């Protein structure tokens, strides 16, 4: 492992290209359905609802014809914390008045309600992990931008520059890895000249070490931004009549079916 690999610390999209039914859904459908499911998961009060949510998360991976490897990895990493949180929930009496008392000793009172609250917490977060993992595996960053651009389009009528906003987000996403690479090169150049890159030292010392990085990072980023602006200009950005899109977003019967399924699942989660 190298201390110069800043790219390692970037949150990297886990998108896996595929041809499953989930991949073929309109991006807007995927965004709306995922948002609605997450909201339902947050607000459902009952264990049964959470179990439905978790089942939907796992079934989604099967529908996407993918092994939920990344989600399992994340889930395993989060499990100790979930267990600690659940234990705290149980010990510190989330709902002391509820259910049969299971144990009473001194100040400690554990009721069935406490235990269920702990179980619910684990279930809820597990379902989040599987659903969000699934969502980020079946939708690419560019589909998110295209989808949200289409969903935000009504805002353009009240004067919100939807298109420019989405373009800013897209270019920023594009530039993150480049920024990390630039920082890496600068750090290497300075370490080659004796800068003590390893030294931990106090905040003061570390700030001092960062100072000479800032100027070249800005200069390089500005130069790159200027180059990109020139390239966009040369490719007629902002000089044409109205911009069109290569991808036509169109709701098909699969999307309507997906909405019905998602609606049914959400109703089930909240009402069961």
């Amino acid at each position, binding site marked *: *492992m*190298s201390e*110069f*690999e800043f*790219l*390692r610390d970037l949150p*990297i999209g*886990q998108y896996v*290209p595929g041809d499953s039914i989930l991949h073929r859904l309109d991006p807007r459908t995927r965004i709306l359905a995922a948002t609605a499911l997450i909201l339902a998961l947050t607000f459902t009060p009952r264990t049964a609802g959470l179990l439905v949510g978790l089942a939907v998360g796992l079934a989604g991976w099967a529908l996407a014809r993918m092994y939920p490897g990344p989600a399992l990895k994340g889930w395993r990493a989060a499990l100790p914390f979930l267990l600690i949180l659940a234990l705290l929930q149980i010990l510190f009496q989330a709902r002391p008045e509820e259910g049969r008392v299971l144990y009473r000793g001194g100040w400690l009172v554990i009721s069935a309600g406490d235990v269920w609250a702990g179980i619910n917490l684990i279930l809820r977060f597990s379902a989040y992990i599987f659903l969000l993992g699934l969502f980020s595996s079946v939708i*690419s*960053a*560019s589909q998110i*931008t295209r989808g949200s651009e289409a969903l935000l389009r009504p805002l353009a009528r009240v004067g919100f520059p939807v298109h420019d906003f989405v373009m800013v987000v*897209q*270019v920023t996403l*594009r530039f993150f*890895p*480049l920024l990390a690479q630039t920082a890496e*090169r*600068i750090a*290497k*150049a*300075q*370490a*080659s*000249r*004796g*800068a*003590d*890159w*390893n030294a931990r030292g106090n905040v003061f010392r570390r700030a001092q070490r960062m100072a*000479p*990085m*800032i*100027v*070249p990072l800005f*200069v*390089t980023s500005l130069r*790159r931004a200027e*180059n*990109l602006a*020139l*390239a*966009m*200009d*040369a*490719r*007629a*950005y*902002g*000089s*044409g*009549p*109205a*911009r*069109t*899109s*290569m*991808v*036509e977003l169109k709701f098909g019967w699969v999307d309507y079916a997906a909405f019905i399924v998602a609606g049914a699942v959400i109703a089930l989660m909240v009402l069961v």
Partner: protein
Amino acid sequence: MDPLVVFEGVSYSYETGESAAGPRPPALKDVSLTIEAGEFVAVVGANGSGKSTFARLAAALLIPTSGSVRLLGLDTRAAAHRARVHAGVGVVFQFPEDQIVGMTVEEDVAFGPENLGLPPAEIRARVESALREVGLWEHRLRPSNMLSAGQTQRLALAGVLAMRPRCILFDEASTMLDPSGRLGLMAAMRRLNREGITVVFITHFMEEAAEAGRVIAFHQGQVAFDGPPRAIFQDRERLAGLGLDLPPAARAASALRRARLDLPAGIITLPELLAALPPFHARPGAEAAPPGRSGSSRMPDSPNQALIEVRDLEHVYLKGTPLAHRALHGANLTTHAGRAHGLLGKTGSGKSTLMQHLNALLRPQGGRVRVGPFDLNDASVRRRDVVRQVGLVLQNPEAQFFAYYVGDEIAFGPRQFDLDEPLRERVRWAMEWVGLDFETFKDRPLFALSGGERRKVALASILALKPSVLLLDEPTAGLDPRSRIDVLGKLSAMQIQGMTIVLSSHQMEDLALLARELTVYEKGRDVLSGPTEDVFDQVDVLKAHGLEPPAAAQVAQALRSLGWPIRAGITGLRDLESAVVAALRGANERV
């Protein structure tokens, strides 16, 4: 029909008029020229000669301060013409990764047509044909930032092709490419031109300019020459005045003519030269002398222990992430003290990664690295101690400058250590070694320097630590011909004074001049190693590895195959000249 590009009395001044030396002169002064549809034009000139400004005006990215630019018959000043002008004239820029907008390959190609407001079906058709043209169709769904340098360059070209332009400008597009990437780009430009697209390319490489149908040379903001390449490459003195040089083939041809070889006039490309070489006229009864090795330039390997030893080195970037990428896989290197060792190979062959192990920026993940007394597998060996002995000049080092004045930039390294001499003296010493006068340059702002001067500051900033080993990653990349010769001269002086140098370069001429030994890398391992002349003799092997041996080595090989008794191991023009003289003398004596 109107000519494609018309400049009429065009001048341009950048708005930021201030500089250390008062108001800046205009970048372009009263330029008038015409480019017709279907032409294949090279634009050359030293750094700061105005050729980039010309390209930006010709792409309607800048509007002239005075005079007028008409593209496809449309005045670039009128905003209403912009979409049609940008669709008609496309640009491929120098840094490919800076011109990619889309997050996936196909989305990036679609960006231009989307801006033109074309219907989706038409956009998809254009994206497909552009990606097929550059050979990236199979990669259309890949993230655009996970392509190699050559692929990124092709993606940039596809983005322009999808606009269906009538003219494409290449603004130093080959600078960042390795030799095979450059040959590929050149072939693509020729193919596009045959298909009817007007191609205008700006270049520092004279061998590329030699292949154009017309060369326009800029000097101090004005057109200093405009005509066929044969005409500009006739006059070496005049070229030098413009900060330019002859193409390597023309230099080889004049060396051969000095050796009294009969060659037609006006040879400027290597294929022309190789085709014009005469067969060796062995007189009846006379046999060609055996092409034995002269042996004079070769010394037995020194018996003492190697200074740098790399064995079976392994390195994977971003190990354990989805972006993991193997850079080195069993790489070796052995170098002796006081010698210059060249590393060559295509982009991505692992040269830079290997170099970064030699000054402890990276530590071996597998294999062993020893540099002098430092065992870099030993975690207790501190990088700070290594970098004082082993100086690394990274590729494009100017991008990492952070000081305002030359003196401060060079003083950064020495300031990190307790020196036994005053800082000022150390900076003076380093500057003088690279040929920058201390009093003249120490208080100059870095941005006011020329490309070659900036490269020398980068060199001095490493030398200021008084290392005994100097590692140079592409030391002449991006320099114009005059600055390149200047920097090479300084490096060769250092080498003569006993500095151990390890350098990587895509410029075989540089390696032939500086390096005594070469190692060729491919896909992270060494595939060929030996004395420079032996490696460059293997013309066909090198070509198979995507490398282009220096012109002298290629000419020597061609002469041998024509029956000339030319010894093996020729890498420079002087050697070539004397070998031809000797062969001719031998032939005459036998008659």
